[in-house]
């Protein structure tokens, strides 16, 4: 994403006329400034504040004291934080590839089929993205429900017992399903837009060289949309590691299955707002944010050598 702009005519002009440069600096900052203020106030300041808070501890006796990294030591030895982190890591490993594979398959189909039904399908597949995650989770909560969900009807047709996606055995897959339903359509649209940007003359050339449909898809289409694939991979990674809305909503339906420490984010929320332990909650938030940042940055660093995306 770090852009390489060739020196424009503008650059050269301003190098010659140094007098104009002050105006250029000023105008640049005037345009960027308002966002800059919001950026400082609502991103940099909270991060700094979270870091500050996370270094303190509030005790009933003795008040607030500086404990340096104690909260982090506590977090990384806290079974609740560790099991939540382990859950989101396992969840990422299953749900992210699944979402991307489904999205890619749909994008390739929709790129190959140009019928009225395909255009209709494109919109319908995208529709779940327009639904707030909370409402999506509420809807699936209904569908999973034993008292008014359709699962018992559908499985009853075959004389089988319905699976209980709210039970501790299956909640993992229940959530994988909700997340895939919600996001695959959005990723599909990004990939589809990238596929549409490919010059069809390339396909003609490949066909003349004897390439079949599969070869065109695998050897031309997928490599050419690699930047878009990387983009959605990063989006889904950032989104999945901060998993909160869906389990929080399904919690009330599956109270025994989803505890308050189900994901690190839920645990931070519980510590801060249910137990008023803002210092520890901040430490968990900051640790989680740090893990996401380092993880994504490391990932980008290693892919950067081969891809021109960043």
């Amino acid at each position: 994403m770090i852009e390489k702009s060739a020196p424009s005519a503008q650059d050269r002009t301003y190098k010659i006329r140094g007098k104009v440069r002050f105006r250029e600096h000023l105008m640049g900052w005037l345009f960027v400034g308002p966002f800059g203020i919001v950026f400082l106030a609502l991103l940099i300041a909270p991060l700094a504040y979270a870091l500050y808070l996370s270094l303190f501890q509030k005790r009933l006796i003795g008040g607030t004291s500086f404990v340096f990294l104690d909260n982090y030591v506590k977090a990384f030895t806290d079974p609740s934080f560790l099991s939540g982190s382990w859950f989101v890591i396992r969840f990422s490993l299953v749900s992210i590839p699944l979402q991307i594979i489904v999205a890619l398959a749909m994008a390739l189909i929709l790129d190959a089929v140009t019928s009225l039904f395909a255009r209709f399908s494109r919109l319908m597949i995208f529709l779940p993205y327009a639904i707030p995650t909370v409402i999506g989770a509420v809807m699936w909560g209904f569908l999973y429900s034993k008292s008014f969900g359709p699962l018992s009807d559908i499985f009853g047709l075959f004389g089988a017992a319905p699976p209980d996606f709210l039970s501790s055995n299956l909640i993992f897959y229940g959530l994988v399903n909700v997340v895939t339903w919600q996001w695959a359509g959005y990723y599909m649209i990004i990939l589809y837009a990238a596929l549409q940007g490919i010059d069809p003359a390339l396909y003609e050339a490949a066909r003349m060289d004897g390439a079949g449909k599969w070869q065109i898809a695998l050897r031309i289409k997928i490599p050419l949309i690699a930047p878009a694939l990387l983009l959605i991979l990063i989006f889904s990674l950032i989104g999945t590691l901060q998993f909160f809305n869906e389990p929080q909503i399904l919690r009330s339906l599956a109270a025994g299955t989803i505890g308050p420490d189900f994901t690190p984010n839920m645990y931070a929320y519980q510590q801060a707002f249910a137990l008023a332990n803002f210092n520890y909650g901040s430490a968990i938030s900051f640790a989680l944010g740090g893990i996401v940042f380092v993880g994504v940055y490391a990932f980008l660093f290693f892919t950067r050598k081969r891809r021109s995306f960043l």
Partner: protein
Amino acid sequence: MSDRSRAGVRRPPQRHLPLQVLLGFLVVYFLVPFWWVIVNSSKDAPGLFGGGNTLWFAGRIDYLGNLEQLFTYDNGIYGRWILNSTLYALAGGVGATVLAVMAGYGFAKYRFAARRFSFALVLGALMVPATALVIPTFMMFSEFGLTNTIWAVILPSLLNPFGVYLMHVYARDAVPDEILDAARADGAGEVRTFLQVALPLMRPAVVTVLLLSAVASWNNYFLPLAMLSDNRLFPVTVGLGLWQGIASANNAGSTSLWSLIIMGALVSVVPLVIAFFTLQRHWRGGLSVGGLR
């Protein structure tokens, strides 16, 4: 850019039957939850729990009755939630878009001190999980007495680094320097050049950023859940979450609340679906920009 005919080769319509059948299955999967909600929002509590077919209508179809109940329950709190969501989405969406458009244009078209460093910071911010900011922002706002006010929801949604990134990429490609220089040579000031020359050229990306930030604000759950305690300030997401918690907690006593939640979920989805469908030409063009670089 998404127009194939412009690329030179015009292809005949492609209809692969097996692929279309596969698409049909996928469409059914993606539509089942909507179908369930549409069907079941027509039912009253006995219809819902009576054990009939959960994917088909019960004997009595009563959309209007359920709608009336939804909007009158608890002194019409649901209508208030919808209005709150609208306010948060509009204020947050418009504010974030104005800031992102100006900043993206500034980054793309001016060479100023610390520009590269600042832009790298914005890109880094794309990777900061939004929810990691909720607890410290809450603590900061509570020091200023801003928690449990509408500002607690609106101000944080003004921050949209992805919007700045999208606008930067778009402004760089869609607004040629030569046109700006020509406007300046004709005596237009920088602000007028931006408003009258650059802005019309950036319109598709502006619509995309506006739609994405408005939707992000409408969908927001964690932030208002943490910030607000007065349920008259809730957006519809937090409100329905609250109802769902109550209904699950005392399952037997609140069967009528379930039909309100189902109807409420349906109504809350309508504005977004309309927004996406009416503006789809614009946002899809805008997304391709982000996906191609």
